Structures are given as C-alpha cells and as structure tokens.
C-alpha cells in the first residue's frame, strides 16, 4: 500500500532547493513537461479530429478537447454552486475520515496491545474487511435516518479498515529492543503505551491515513453519485459530475474530474505535511 506517497513528494521537495542552473539541466523535469504537453496536444487533436477531418476517432473523439474543458472551467469558477460542491465534498470527507481516525487508531492500538482483544475482535474484522465499502451504501441508506449520516457512515467504513490494519501492523512490528530498553529503565505499562507504542506506530498511522484518505474520496464520490444522484442529495463534487452527465455537458464532467483530482491531491498533501510535522525524526532522511 506504499504506492501512494512514492514519487511526487521527493521531487516536490527537491524542486525548491534546486538552483536555476540545475533546473535547466534537469532532464527529468523537461521530459515530464514535454510528455504532458504532448499528451495535451494529442488529446486536442484527437478530440477535434471529427471537426477537422470529418471522421470521429474511437474513444478520444468523444471526449471534449482540453481547450473546451478550460473554457468550461473558467465559466464555472465564478459560480457559487461550484465552490459549494467543493465545500460539501470536503465536509463529508473530513467527517468520515476524522471519525475513522478517532475510532480506528485506538481500536488498532488496542488490538496490538492486548492479545485477548486481538483474538476476539480480529476475526469478525477480517470477515467484514473484504466487503467493498460501496456495497454498504444501500444498507446504510436504509439504516441511517438521513442521507448525510449514511454517506458519513460508508466513508467511515472505507477509511476505518485501512487505518486499523495499518496501525495494527505498525504497532505489532515495533523493535522488541525498544520495548525491552524501556522495560529495564522501569517503564510502567502506561509509559510503554504512551512513550513507546504510540510514537513507534506513528509512521504507520500516517501511511494508513494517506491510503484511507484516498479511499474516503472514492467513497464520498460514489455515495454522492449513487444516493444524491439528482434528487435529495446536497450537492458535492460527485453530484456536480453526475449533474453534468445528466445535463449532457461533457466539458463539465471533465472539469469535475480534474477538480476532484486536485481536491484529492490537496488532502493527501495535507496529510503528508502533517506527518512531517508530527514526526520530525523522519524528516531527516
């Protein structure tokens, strides 16, 4: 699951430090830029092929060209509704994510620390874990009184399993020498938990949080599309996309997609930043 934080962080951090001369020589950067530019040009040409050549290319011919997307984006940016959907989606993500953290971290640590708890609670947990979070959507719609609560619940579930598994794994793999060192210096159970187990599992807590955040966005989006789909849903970026789809505005669909991409990227960067702040000893690699 370590996929999430691989490339971008390192190159982003490195960029700031590079001098201009080094930047000029940075082949990686230029190649990346060239590739993106080329993709955009191909996309533009492919989409416009039907107009220019009179023949529609498969797949790509159906997608609006980037210039049209940009125009549509410029159009929605001043609109209040667009930003409101950002706000609503963020609110839902945050609610589900935070509740999953608040419940998941103590639960994971409890499972790690107490053998009995692990033996009793882990099997049901493992039975429920493979069920995709979205499969819970209908059940939760029936169970919870409001739509908002059911979205929050499914979001919570999505992040919860990932966080618990990560916390449990991290806390179980603490170097035994650290525990022993603390023990022989006279640490009580309480000390061991707060001063050893907790800080030692912080890295895996943040890994879990980063992965969980990704899942949270997926789930919020799906829940907005499935439940809110036009009727009583309270907006959100998923709804924005679905609405554009219903309205037949292809450009706006793509705008919505990229908006969510940006939102997801922002939230995972926030977690990465927070992780760096909370774990100064890990920043030094």
């Amino acid at each position, binding site marked *: 699951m370590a996929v999430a934080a691989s490339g971008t962080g390192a190159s982003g951090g490195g960029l700031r430090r590079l001098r201009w001369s080094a930047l000029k020589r940075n082949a990686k950067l230029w190649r990346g*830029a060239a590739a993106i530019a080329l993709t955009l040009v191909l996309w533009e040409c492919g989409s416009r092929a039907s107009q220019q050549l009179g023949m529609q290319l498969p797949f790509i011919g159906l997608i609006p060209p980037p210039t049209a997307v940009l125009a549509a984006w410029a159009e929605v940016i001043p609109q209040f509704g667009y930003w409101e959907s950002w706000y609503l989606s963020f609110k839902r993500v945050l609610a589900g994510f935070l509740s999953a953290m608040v419940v998941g971290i103590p639960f994971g640590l409890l499972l790690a620390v107490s053998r009995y708890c692990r033996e009793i609670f882990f099997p049901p947990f493992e039975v429920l874990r493979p069920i995709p979070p979205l499969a819970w959507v209908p059940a939760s719609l029936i169970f919870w009184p409001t739509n908002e609560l059911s979205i929050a619940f499914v979001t919570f579930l999505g992040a919860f399993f990932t966080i618990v598994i990560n916390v449990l794994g991290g806390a179980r793999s603490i170097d035994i020498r650290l525990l022993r060192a603390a023990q022989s210096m006279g640490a009580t159970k309480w000390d061991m938990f707060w001063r050893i187990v907790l800080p030692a599992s912080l890295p895996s807590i943040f890994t879990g949080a980063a992965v969980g955040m990704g899942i949270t966005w997926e789930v919020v989006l*799906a829940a907005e599309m499935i439940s809110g789909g036009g009727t009583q849903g309270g907006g959100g970026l998923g709804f924005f996309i679905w609405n554009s789809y219903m309205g037949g505005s292809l450009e706006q669909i793509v705008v919505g997609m990229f908006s969510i991409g940006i939102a997801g990227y922002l939230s995972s960067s926030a977690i990465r930043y927070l992780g760096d702040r909370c774990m100064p000893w890990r920043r030094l690699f």
Partner: protein
Amino acid sequence: MLNNGQGASLGVRAGRMPMFMARIYRRLSATGPYFTLLGLVLWVGTWWLLCEVFSVPRFEKMPGPVVVLSELFSPQPFLGVSVFTEEYYAHMWASCRRIFFAFCIATGVGVPLGLFMGWSRKFRDYTFPILEILRPIPILAWVPLAILMFKGFESPVIFLATLASLYVSTLNTLLGVDSIDESYFRAAGCLGSKPHHIFWHVVVPGALPFMFTGLQISIGVAWFSLVAAEMVSGDWGLGYLIVDAYMNNVTVPMVIGMITLGFVGWFTSVLVRIVGDRMMQWRTRALAMENR
C-alpha cells in the same frame, strides 16, 4: 564432524512424526482458536440480538443472521436469490467474469509498463508525470465519461475496474524494480550479461515480490470499483444485485450480496497470493527458514 552432521539431520528426520503430533497438540491446547470462535459468535450474536430478538429501533430494518442464512440456503427463496437459484450464480458469474477481464488487462498492461518504467530512466521520465496527474482522479469520477466513451453495459464496467487496478499494478511493479539492490545489476553486469539478460534475470524476478503485493491490492481495488460501477450502471452482477434489492425495498438479498462479495473478494485475493507464492519459491522458502 561427519558423524555429527549425520546425527543432527537424522534427528530431524526421526523427529518429524512427533513434531507433527506436537503441532496438533499445540493447536488444541492454545487458547487462540477458542477466542477466535468466541469473537465470531459474539459478533453474530450481537447482530442477531439487535436485529431479530429485541428489534432495536433502526436495527429492526436490517435482516438478522437467521433470516439471511435461512434465505440463503432455502431451496425456494422467498425473495429471489439463494444458493439454489440460478440467478445467484448468474450474478456471481457476471461479476467474476468482469473482474477476470479487468484484472487480466490491467496486469497485462500494467506490469510490463511498470517494468519498463523501472528499467529505463527515460521512459519513466516521460510516462510517470502523466500517471501522476491522472491518478488522483478517483475511479468513480470516470463513471459518466466511461458510459459515454464505451457503448453497452459491459465495457464501461470493465473499463473502470481495469483503470483502478492498472494504477496499482503499474506503480507497485515500478516500486518493485526500484527496490532491487543496485549490486544485483552490477553483479549481472560484471558476469557478462547483455541488457536483455539483465531484464529477464534481474529486473523481472527482482520485482516479483512487490509486484505480487501490488496485484493483491489491485484485485481488491478492482472489486471496489466494479461494485461501484455495477451499482451506477449495470444490468447484472453482485453490485447490481445489491442496488436492485435496495430499489425494490427488500433487504435480505442486499445482505446476501454483501456476504457473497466479501467471500468472492477474499477468495480471489487468496488466489493471487497462492500464485505469487508458487512463483516465488525462493522467497517462501527463505521466509519459512526465518520464521521457524
């Protein structure tokens, strides 16, 4: 010295039978399994009490375990699906077939892509940024576009599941190539390998462990997006079964769908793991030595 050696290995050989017995004995005497059982019973019991016995408000809307199980195993299901109906298997089959196609395409494209990205610096510099830009877009956001781009019911669903697992398998394979120690490349180099030797003898086997971790995650992600896609657009499949039950206001098939999904999802991931262990004998055997 020689004697000593034989003695020791004979000891192990002779000790095999008792070791086997000892293992059974240990299994039975350990508290673990009993607690596991207790945990499961507690969980199902709570479910049962909440939903069926006391009918606690809100929980009463959910079917309890007894209702679900009796429906699941009844030859004449009241609500349409059970292990005896064809429909149940048709849904399962539809989902599994889609996962199979999606997983195969994603692996067939993603793994070579990841290998090449890891192998060639240039190729990676060109492709990685594009992947990084597309990746944060949740799969679900592709749903409308997928419906528009692909005709019919089947292909958009497969497309979404493929896309989801493609990212994971590509990136993990890439990570796998990155994780290979530089000295293996050097060792291969100074033993006189040509580039294609290095690719087949170092890059591919060296990336396998990460690759299979990736594939296991990737099949999970594929199920995740498949369910979502089936729920939004579909006419068949487990995701559809769930959402259809919801639309018709029946809860039991919904829970049956969820249970089935959990089981099938778990089973496929175990399948991937078994294949991985088979292909990485060297790793399984080394791990067995360590864990002893």
